[in-house]
């Protein structure tokens, strides 16, 4: 069985599993990292959104064999450590706005929001309503309006 090595939330991890297994299942089923959620398995619901090398990605759609030992995967569990705080400003915004209802999609929502803010910053601008409209993460509880408010607050504090 191939040995797969990558960086997970700041630490190297090695796991024995076939190349073909998607990263989501390596995280959830083999490593017990359950923040990223399953909602579709085909990269449309975005509930598993995490970061690879600082950018948003969906581990349901990446083979573990396609990761290199230098690739840095950050899940919701490791987000706060990226700013060396107890909570990332986006998580704090989520708390302040009481965004979550059932909470199932929220790890993915927060990871997507952080990546969106970073993306528009790279483009030299700030988040617009049109940018918020591009977020594909489903919230079946429908708390979209609070998500929009929280992203504005979180972005201001990032």
């Amino acid at each position, binding site marked *: 069985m191939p040995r797969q090595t990558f960086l997970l939330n700041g630490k190297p991890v090695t796991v024995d599993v076939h190349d*073909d297994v998607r990263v989501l299942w390596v995280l959830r089923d083999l490593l017990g990292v*359950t923040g990223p*959620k399953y909602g*579709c398995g085909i990269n449309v619901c975005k509930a598993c959104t995490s970061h690879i090398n600082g950018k948003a990605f969906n581990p349901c759609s990446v083979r573990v064999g396609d990761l290199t030992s230098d690739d840095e995967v950050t899940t919701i569990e490791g987000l706060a450590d990226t700013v060396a705080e107890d909570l990332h400003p986006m998580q704090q915004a989520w*708390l302040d706005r009481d965004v979550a209802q059932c909470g199932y*999609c929220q790890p993915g929502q927060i990871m997507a929001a952080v990546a969106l803010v970073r993306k528009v910053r790279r483009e030299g601008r700030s988040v617009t309503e049109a940018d918020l409209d591009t977020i594909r993460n489903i919230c079946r509880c429908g708390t979209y309006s609070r998500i929009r408010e929280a992203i504005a607050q979180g972005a201001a504090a990032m």
Partner: protein
Amino acid sequence: MTHDLDTTPAGIARRSFLGYVIGGTTLVAAADLAVGASPAVAVPGVRQPAELYDLEDLQTDAALPTSQLITVRIDVDGTASFELPRMEVGQGITTSTAIILAEELDLPVEKVRVTLAPARPELVFNQLTGGSNTTVSTYTPIRVAAAIARGALLDAAAVELGYAVTRLRTYEGVVEAPDGRTLTYGELAQKAASADTKQVQVQLKDRSEFTRIGQPRNRDDAILAVTGRKKFAMDLHVPGALPTMVCRPPTLNGSPKRLRNKAQILAMPGVEDVAKVDTGIAVRAQTFGQCIDAIRAMDVAWAPGSVEGESDQTILARLKGAELPMAVPKVPVLADQLDVRFEFMFRSSAALEPNCAVADVRADSAEIWAGLKVPILAQENIAQALGMSPDRVKVNVITGGGSFGHKLFSDAAIEAAKISQAMGKAVRLMWHRADEPRQGRLHPMVTSRIRATTLAGQVLSFEQRNTSVVTDFSHGLGEIITSMADELPTGLGGLGFSETIFELTQVLPYDFGVVTQLLNETDARFNTGSMRNIYSPDTRVAAELVVDMLAKRLGKDPLEFRLEFCRSDRVRAVLEKVAEEGDWGRTMPPGTAQGIAIHEEYKGATACLVEIDCRPETVGRKVRDAVTGPRVTKAVFAVDAGLVINPRGLEAQMMGGFSDGLALTLTSSVHLRDGHFLEASWDNYFYTRQWNIPPEFECHILPSDSDQPGGAGEAGVAASAASVACAYARATGAVPTRFPINHGRLSFPVKPFVPPVPPSPTNGLKLTY
């Protein structure tokens, strides 16, 4: 209810309640509201049944006899613990319950621990989460239990501190004597315990004394949710419970004959076990990804399903054939008559967390972990499926990732138990997303016909006849109705479950003369359930569109017309609120319009005003793999929910209800074609997304003098769906009669039915941002 009237020095009559201090080593208290339930009421002709006795009353009365079995415990660490016999699925009841307990206990909310009770058969009808009834039915019993606990703490403190109880005061978990000495609840917990169970009488706080109830409070589990630590059923670690999925039939409710390539499947990487069950071929593997690969490789012989060859058109024809005739009341010859017929398609009630359950079935016992809104019935059903007695089956209730009616049923828990038994191993069963719209529970297809007559500026009659595919109420609410038959208003005795629930929930709050609303059902071959606010969104969309048509016919503005005929002060207040806050009647460009609608249910009233943009450049805007269409640009919502426990949570429920209503009217449905539903994932099933949501949403909570909390979880849907429909009709100049409005055009390539699940993509690293 059990109470007598006691006159306080101020001359205000206050009810006192009975309850118990339960014998034990630390303080445990319970309410007893079992004696003397409220009497049955008769319905005068002009009132609709639900105005006098509604589903909330029925569920609340059904829960009363077992209220003494629900206890509050005070521990030596100064915390209060309460096992809520309901299920948290995002609606915020653990938070609101903690607020209620803290209020009556005089304890910081943070020191109240609310967890979910496992299945407790002795609670009978007092462990069903549905009908937005949790706070309505538990508000008084848990306050009584908390008040008894506080009273026992005071009694113990009186002995310790040497003062009469009347001279002591409680605050923030502390009892204080006039000399300034204090004792904490933790210090008193064991001293307040009683060796024997004893009956006591208490009075509850007056709402003027409330300091916690009514204050906005964030969810108790928010920190867990935003850090990824909140555990759902699939996040639990149960030893040996490996990922398990089921290869399901290509047509609805088909069944497996045999797996032709079992050896090949068992040889696949990670695969451990394969078993045939009645719903398909189950596979257990090291990872869910390997389950998906195995399902895609399976060669299965299938038996036909329950609706082979059927399609939307054939079911619509069947509904049409079952429609009841209108009972046309006698009207003057000169009266104008309006007849309109609406159609509402099948919709999926699936949450984002798919159906799932963990099961560990041994030779003579079983343990289940799942999100279950009716765990007692789940326990019975699982026991029956396994051939065990219910006391050998432990059912743990896990917080759910959404429900929307889906978790009323224990489909996944029963299936997981059967698979675990067949394999002889623990399983972590999860449905693939594709399984949900194709085999999962749906909102039934419905037609709604309305006939209204008008004469000389008055509406003389308003008849509404809904005809629906059968809604499955076998989740326990049916048993409650049977047991409470004597409590039902006169005239409802002979109706079936669905018709009874329809009559107990539907109210048309307009003075429209002779008003009748009836439901008729046909066709029980589908997997259905009470999707959030089951009958009201369709009923209200149809009715409010007709109200706009009547207003137009009588030359009235929609708001003016509604206010003129409104016969509920609470409805009038929310209607006036949204009209004012939403600037009703402002000038809008062609192709855009406002819409306004109301609803009365769950001991409350709601109104919604929206603005919609139906101009071609908006309708035609492009988003990859998405339905765009008309855009609601602003929504103003108002709610009178009676006594509000947590306004922040209430607002959240109205926001979510709005998102649901928006989807029901504009975008979300499933298409039946040739015996199967075409939708297979979120790129086919168009629930509201960020590109559909109004950039402006506001929710106004009206003040209320009521001592009665209303329901919240489902209260936001109906008025929202109706206001969007009304706005769409006004913006386009044509009243839509089929919902959602985009159902006629299939907006996606249909995924294959064999294999039943799509391949897992591999291109994720090309889509980073």
